[in-house]
């Protein structure tokens, strides 16, 4: 059987399209193969990374209801929402006055007490009990704890001081204590989340 020398165009290093622009058919195949492979790697990597995100049961613990009828003026309680502490504080008139006396220009994150509480219920300060610096639980909710230089909360980890409206006043924390989404179901019951 006679064979004819017929070079495989795919193995031919010369330009096979005759255009002379230096582009080889092999280049297209290389790029197409690598691109297709990258899509495949990405498709496999996604579930491997996505599994790290909070699972459905963690996200499902979205809202809680708290009875606040037993919290006297000047007292605070700690409760737990989404595995994180929440402070609910019944401010005294003096504490409200103290918060309102601060000029906004003196604040790192300017917010009034009214903006941080519900209309007509300015004495109920609901904040996350999570320091906005690195996530420690500040002191000051329980009786006799250090309330810091501004009579609110004091974080023992790195010395952040919050005032009676839970606003950052001194120390490394960048922002005020976070006010979670909450509403009054009745005068003595709030729903957080």
């Amino acid at each position, binding site marked *: 059987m006679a064979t004819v020398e017929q070079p495989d165009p795919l193995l031919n290093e010369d330009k096979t399209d005759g255009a002379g622009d230096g582009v080889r058919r092999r280049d297209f195949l290389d790029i197409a193969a690598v691109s297709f492979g990258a899509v495949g790697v990405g498709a496999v990597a996604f579930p491997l990374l996505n599994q*790290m*995100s*909070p*699972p459905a049961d*963690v996200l499902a613990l979205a809202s809680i209801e708290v009875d606040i009828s037993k919290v006297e003026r000047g007292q605070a309680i*700690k409760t*737990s929402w*989404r*595995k*994180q*502490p929440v402070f609910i504080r019944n401010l005294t008139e003096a504490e409200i006055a103290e918060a309102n006396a601060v000029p906004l220009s003196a604040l*790192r994150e300017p917010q009034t007490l009214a903006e941080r509480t519900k209309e007509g219920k300015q004495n109920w300060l609901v904040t996350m*009990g999570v320091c906005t*610096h*690195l*996530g*420690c*639980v*500040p002191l000051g909710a329980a009786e006799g704890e250090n309330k810091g230089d501004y009579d609110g909360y004091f*974080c*023992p*980890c*790195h*010395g952040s001081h919050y005032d009676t409206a839970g606003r950052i006043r001194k*120390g*490394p*924390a*960048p922002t005020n204590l976070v006010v979670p989404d909450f509403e009054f179901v009745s005068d003595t019951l709030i729903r957080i989340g």
Partner: protein
Amino acid sequence: MSFAWAKPYEPKTQLGHWIDQRLPLPRMVHGAVGGGYPVPRNLNYAWNFGVLAGVFLMIQIVTGIVLAMWYNSGIATAFSSVEHVMRDVNSGWFLRYAHANGASFFFIVVYIHIFRGLFYGSYKAPRELVWMLGLVVYLLMMATAFMGYVLPWGQMSYWGAQVITGFFSAFPVVGEPLRVFLLGGFAPDQAALTRFFSLHYLLPFVIAAVVILKTWALHIPGSSNPTGVDVKTEKDTLPFHPFFTAKDGWFVLAFLMLYAAVLFFAPNALGHPDNYIEANPLATPAHIVPEWYFLPFYGILKAFTVDFILPAKLWGVIAMFGSILLLFLLPWLDRSPIRSGHYRPMFKVFFAILIVDVLLLGWAGGAEPTAPVVAVMQIATAYYFAHFLIILPLISKFEKPLPLPNSISSSVLHGEAEESAPYGLAKA
């Protein structure tokens, strides 16, 4: 591998020949840590800490594997499973104390090893990659140690996890979602504990792999030495085995006695009592501090208290990571061609100040953040960065180094006085 006079591997038995032709593993070992690896003959005891670090890596892997046979990574059971190891499991107390203190000693050894490298200029050409791979090992060690400390799920475990993952929330926009992603929840919880356990088991083997790369990169130019002068002839070296295997061997045993003394007589001296209280997500311990080996970095983190363009918290996190990443650039920041600090009169002084500075940062990192402590942290942090970014480049420009010895062997053969005084200055 490195020098022409390295003794080639010669199998002594028929079986040795048979294996050598099929899988030359004994040949590789001979060239790496045997008679086939010529080492500068003037190494001092500072050079023992590389092998010692390898020994502690093995101790951690072995004790860790057996502890994992008893550990339970559920948040309701993790703490009690560790107490079970301590009280009920046969020899469990020994294994856990060996592992916990082994981590501390691993860091002691590695810190001495790093400062050895800093003083003798081991990071300079042609060993830049050896230095950088070492830094990769160090970063992996820190990640491994942090995750291991979370596993007992005590108060310090939990709040350490909270604070350290909190670093990520400092970054604008992506920070908080990234933190939640890394934890698999809004606070450290079951998802975080299980993934930390998985990674804590994995990373030591990654470390072992990087150590192999590092050793490979080291054996291309060969070990550095206290004079910093390159090896020139066979007279400058001794084969690794038996000379340095013997020296490393006795030193490892001596150092292990120190380790054993702490392990048996003061096993909790380097830990925190709070970690014997089970994790409570609603109450932070009064004084959170990391393990001692992270304190200087904690000091840098806490040094930033004022917003300047970026929030103070972000500065602290950037500076803390930056303090290590900076070291990757060290081979190009220190431009002096002289390796060894012995021949660099100005460098020597600032090196001593750097050691004091790092110790000061460590002290301040562990102290309550009162005003004077914060001031110390700020000055010490500023000095740390100034040392690498300003002082080192300037010294390499203005320093007049002392004359170097002609060769390693001439430095050695002239005796002790010659070793400490540069060649040509001491009286013959």
